[in-house]
C-alpha cells in the first residue's frame, strides 16, 4: 500500500497524459477517441478516489507526498502532495472529467482526436495545479492549463472562437508575467521554490516588506483574474459562450480560488490580511453585479457566466473573511459549485445540441417533451440557489453565517441579497425554458429526452448534491484538518508544528 500511496499522485497526473498520447495514435473511427477518453477519465477518477480512502484527517502537513529533484539549477523539485484543501478538489477534477467526455459525446463531431487529446492534456494540467507544492512546477501546470483551453475554444467556438480564445488567453497569460517575476524574485532571495520551505522562510525571514508586498500583489492579481474577481471578469462571458461545454464547466473558479487560499494566503498571510477588506468589497460588488447582469441575459451561456461570477465572488468573500468556518465553507462551496455547474452545463449543452440555439427566448414548455431533463435541471437549479438539504445550502450557510458573526454584518446582508437575486434568475431561467407555452422551436423538432449516457452521469450528480446537503461532515472533516483553529490570534493555514521549526529557519542571503 505504501508503494501505491507514494506514486498515486504521479499516476493521477500522468494517466490523462498517457490517454492523450493514445488518442493521437488511434484512427478516428467507431468513436474510438471518445471511448479512450472516457475510459481514461474513469480510470483517473478511480485513482483519485484512492486519495480520500487513505487520507488521514488531522495529520499535519501534506500526504501522499512525492519529492524528487527535477532540475538541479535552479533547484526545481517534482514536489507534489495533497492536504485537506486540495484533497477533494483533486477528486472533483477527477469526477468532472468523465462528465466532460459525456457532455462532448454528441456535441463534438469533427477532429475528435484533437479534441480529446487536448481535453486530456487539460486534465493533466489541472491535476498538476492542485497537487504541486513547488512553485515552478505549479507555475508550469498553471500555464499549461491555458493552452488546450485556448485552442479548443478557437476550434469549436460557436461564433468567433479565435477572438474569444485570444481574449481568454491574454487575460490570464499577461497577469502571470508579474507572477513569474515574483516567483523568480523570491527564489533569488531565498534559494527555494518549495512551498513548505517558503512558508517558513517568508514568515520568519527578513525580506524587505515593501518588495514582499509587491510579490504578494503579483500573486493575487494573477489569481484574481483567473477566478475572476470583479472588475477582472472581462473574459468570462465570451469564454462561456464560445467554449465547448466540457471546458466551460472547468474554466472558472476552482484553479484561482484554490491558488488564492494555498499560495496567496498560505505564503503571504500578513499581506493577504491587509488586502482582505478591498477584496471583500470587490467580492460583494461581484456578487450583486453578477446577479444583476445574469437577470438580464438573453443567452443562457452568458447567464451562466454572470451567475458564476456571482457565486465565485461569494467564495472570495469567504476566503478573505479569514475565518475558520468561512474557509471550510469556501472549499465546500467550490466542490458544490463544481458539481452543480457541471450538471447544469451538461443539460444546457444537451439542449443546445438538440435545438441549436442558446437564446432563452426560443425555448419554452420543454418540460412535457423532456421530463427527465426538466426534473434534473430543477434539482440542479435548486442546489445552486441553496435550497436546504441540497449541497448549496450548506456552503452558503457556512459562508454567510461566518461572515455575519465574525466579519461584517453589512457585507453579509449585501451578499445575502445577491443570493436572493440568484434564486430569481435561476428560477426564471427554469420557467422560461421548461414551462409556459410550448415555443415554435420546441414543437418544430421531435421530442428527444436526454439519452442513457447523459442520465448515467446526471443521476449520480443529483444524488451527490443531495448527499452533500445531508452529510456535509463527510467532506468538511478532512477540509478542516488543514485549516487550523486559532491558538490565540487569528487562524492560519500553517500546521502548528511548523511554528516551532520556523524559529530556527534563516533566510539565505
Amino acid at each position, binding site marked *: 500500500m505504501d508503494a501505491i500511496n507514494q506514486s498515486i499522485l504521479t499516476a493521477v497526473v500522468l494517466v490523462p497524459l498517457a490517454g492523450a498520447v493514445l488518442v493521437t495514435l488511434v484512427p478516428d473511427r467507431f468513436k474510438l477517441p471518445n471511448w479512450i477518453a472516457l475510459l481514461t477519465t474513469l480510470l483517473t477518477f478511480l485513482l483519485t478516489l484512492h486519495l480520500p480512502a487513505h487520507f488521514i484527517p488531522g495529520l499535519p502537513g501534506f500526504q501522499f507526498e512525492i519529492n524528487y529533484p527535477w*532540475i*538541479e*539549477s*535552479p533547484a526545481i523539485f517534482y514536489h507534489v502532495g495533497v492536504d485537506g484543501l486540495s484533497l477533494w478538489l483533486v477528486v472533483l477534477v477527477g469526477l468532472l472529467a468523465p462528465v466532460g467526455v459525456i457532455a462532448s459525446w454528441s456535441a463534438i463531431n*469533427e*477532429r475528435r*482526436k*484533437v479534441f480529446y487529446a487536448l481535453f486530456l492534456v487539460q486534465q493533466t494540467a489541472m491535476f498538476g495545479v492542485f497537487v504541486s507544492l513547488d512553485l*515552478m512546477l505549479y*507555475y*508550469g*501546470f498553471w*500555464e*499549461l492549463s*491555458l*493552452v488546450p483551453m*485556448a*485552442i479548443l475554444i*478557437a*476550434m469549436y*467556438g460557436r461564433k468567433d*472562437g*479565435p477572438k474569444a*480564445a*485570444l481574449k481568454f*488567453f*491574454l487575460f490570464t*497569460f*499577461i497577469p502571470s*508575467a*508579474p507572477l*513569474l*517575476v515574483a516567483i*523568480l*524574485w523570491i*527564489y*533569488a532571495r531565498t534559494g527555494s521554490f518549495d512551498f513548505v520551505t517558503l512558508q517558513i522562510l517568508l514568515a520568519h525571514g527578513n525580506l524587505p516588506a515593501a518588495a514582499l508586498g509587491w510579490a504578494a500583489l503579483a500573486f493575487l492579481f494573477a489569481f484574481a483574474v483567473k477566478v475572476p474577481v470583479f472588475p477582472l471578469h472581462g473574459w468570462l462571458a465570451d469564454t462561456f459562450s464560445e467554449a465547448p461545454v466540457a471546458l466551460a464547466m472547468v474554466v472558472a473558479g476552482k484553479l484561482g480560488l484554490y491558488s488564492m487560499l494555498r499560495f496567496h494566503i498560505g505564503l503571504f498571510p500578513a499581506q493577504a490580511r491587509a488586502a482582505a477588506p478591498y477584496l471583500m468589497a470587490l467580492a460583494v460588488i461581484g456578487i450583486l453585479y453578477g446577479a444583476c447582469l445574469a437577470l438580464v441575459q438573453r443567452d443562457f451561456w452568458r447567464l451562466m457566466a454572470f451567475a458564476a461570477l456571482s457565486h465565485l465572488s461569494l467564495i472570495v468573500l469567504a476566503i478573505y473573511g479569514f475565518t475558520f468556518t468561512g474557509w471550510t465553507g469556501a472549499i465546500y462551496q467550490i466542490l458544490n459549485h463544481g458539481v452543480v455547474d457541471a450538471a447544469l452545463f451538461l443539460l444546457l449543452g444537451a439542449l443546445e445540441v438538440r435545438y441549436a440555439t442558446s437564446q432563452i427566448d426560443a425555448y419554452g414548455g420543454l418540460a412535457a417533451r423532456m421530463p427527465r431533463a426538466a426534473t434534473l435541471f430543477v434539482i440542479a437549479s435548486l442546489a445552486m440557489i441553496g435550497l436546504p438539504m441540497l449541497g448549496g445550502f450548506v456552503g452558503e450557510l457556512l459562508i454567510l453565517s461566518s461572515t455575519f458573526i465574525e466579519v461584517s454584518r453589512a457585507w453579509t446582508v449585501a451578499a445575502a441579497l445577491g443570493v436572493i437575486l440568484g434564486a430569481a434568475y435561476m428560477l426564471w431561467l427554469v420557467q422560461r425554458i421548461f414551462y409556459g407555452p410550448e415555443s415554435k422551436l420546441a414543437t418544430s423538432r421531435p421530442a428527444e429526452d436526454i439519452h442513457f449516457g447523459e442520465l448515467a452521469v446526471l443521476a449520480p450528480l443529483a444524488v451527490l448534491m443531495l448527499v452533500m446537503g445531508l452529510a456535509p461532515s463527510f467532506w468538511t472533516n478532512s477540509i478542516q484538518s488543514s485549516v487550523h483553529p486559532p491558538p490565540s490570534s487569528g487562524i492560519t493555514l500553517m500546521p502548528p508544528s511548523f511554528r516551532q521549526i520556523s524559529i530556527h529557519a534563516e533566510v539565505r542571503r
Partner: protein
Amino acid sequence: MNPVPDIFRILPEVILTVTGVTIMLIEASLRPGWTRRWLGWVAAIGTTLALWASVWQLSLPAGTGYFGTVETSPFTVFFHILICGIVLVALLLSLDTLPEDSHHQGEFYALIVFGAVGMCLLTGAVELLVVFIALEISSISTYILAGYRKETGRGPEAAIKYFLLGSFATGFLLYGIALTFGATGTTQIYEIARLAPSAQNHSLILAALALMLVGILFKVSAAPFHVWTPDVYEGAPSPVVALLSTAPKAAAFALLLRVVYEMFPSLHGLWAPLLWVVAVLSMTVGNLAALRQQNVKRMLAYSSIAHAGYLLAAFSAASDKTGFSEAGIAAASFYIAAYAAMNVGIFAVITLVSGYDDKLPMIDDFRGLIYRAPLLGSLLLFFLVSLVGIPFTGGFFGKFYSFSAAVDGGAVALAIIGLLNSGLAAAYYLHLALVSAQRDPSAAGRPAVATPQVGVAVAAALSLAVLATLILGIVPGEVLRAAQSGAHTLQAPPPENTPSGDAVQP
C-alpha cells in the same frame, strides 16, 4: 607544450570545408539535367561528421591552436554542436523542398556548408582577425543564400539589402578591431583582456567596444540595428530563413559573449546598461511591429528581433568583481539553443505549408490549417506554443533562465518588461495559432491546396526540432550543465599563464 595537433582544434571546420569543396567539384562535373538531389545527402553526412567531430573535441584538453588563434573548449563545442545541428536540420529540410528543376542545387548545399564553416570558426576564434574572416565567410554565404530565388523580385532585393547593410556592420566591427589594436597593440582576445584595464588610451577602448557592439548587434538583429530582418526573411526561401534566423545569430551571440565577457569584462559597468537598453528596445520594437504584420514570415522576423531582446536580458545577470558572470553566459547559451530548436521547427512547418515559392504567405492563408493538414497544423501549434513560452517546452526554460539571471542581477524592471512583452507576443503567436485551429468557413470557395508532401528528410528534420524543443522543455538539466561548463571556460585565463605579467604597468 601543446601536445594536441593543431588540426584537431579545427577538425569540424576542416570536415565541413572538405565536404563543401567536394560538392562544388561534383556539381561542376555533373551534366545539366542530371539529378543533384543526392548532393544534399553528401552535405548532410558531412555535417553529421562535423557534429561528431565537435563532440569528440570534448575529449581534447581545452586550449588553443595555430599560434593561439582558435580555441577548443566546452564553450566552442556547445556552439559547434548547436550550429551543426541547425545546419543539419536546414539541409534535411531543403532536401525535400527545393524544386527538382533548380539548376543550382549543388551550389545551394555547398553554400550552406561553407556558411557553417564560417559560423563554427567564429565561435572558436580567439584572435580578432580570425573572427573577422570567419564572420565574412559566414556572411557571404548567407548573402547569396538570401537571394536564392532569383526569379522573384523579392529575392535579389533581400540579398542586396542584406549585403549592403551587412557590409556596413562588418565595417563597424573592423573599425572596432582596428581601434582595439591601436589601444592595446594586439588582436589576441586574452591579451586584450589583460591589457585593456590598464590601457592608457581609455577612450580609444570605449570607442572600439562601441563599434564592435554595433557590428555584432546588427548580426543578431537587435534593435535599433534590425531593419534588414523582415525584408530578408520575406524574400529569402523559407528553408534558408530557418537557417538564417538561427545559426548566424547563434554564432554572433557566441562572439558577443566572447567580446563582453572574455575581452572586456572590465568594462562591465559600461556595456551592461547599454545592453539593457538594447534588450528593452529589441523586445518592445519587435513585438509591437510583429503585432501589425499580416505576412507570416515578416511576423516571425519581428518576433526574432524580440527574442534577441529576451536573450540580451541574460547579460544583466549578476557578475563577480571582474565583470564575469557564469550564470549569465549559461542562460544566454541555453536561450540560443532553445530559440534555435523552436524557430527552425516553425520555419520547417512554414516551408511545408507555403512551399519553397511562398504560395501562401499570409496569416489568413493558414486559416483552418489543422483541418486541412492535421499533423502540420498540430506541429505549428506546438512550435507557436513554445515561442509563446509555455512551460514544458524549450521556449519556457529559455525565458526562465534568461529572466531569472536578470532578476538575480537586480534587473527586476527588465524582467517585468520582458515578461509583459512575452504577453504581448502571445497575442500574435496565438492569433496565428488560433486562426489555424479555426474551422474554415470559406474552405469550399478556396482553391484546393495540395497536401504537402512530407518526405523522409523533412520528417527527420521535424522530429529533430520537436524532440529538441521537448527535451529542452522537460529535462533541460543536461543542456544547461553543458552551457554552464561552457560558460566556465569563457573566462580569460588568469595572468599567471603569461609569465610577462609583471611587465604590465600598474
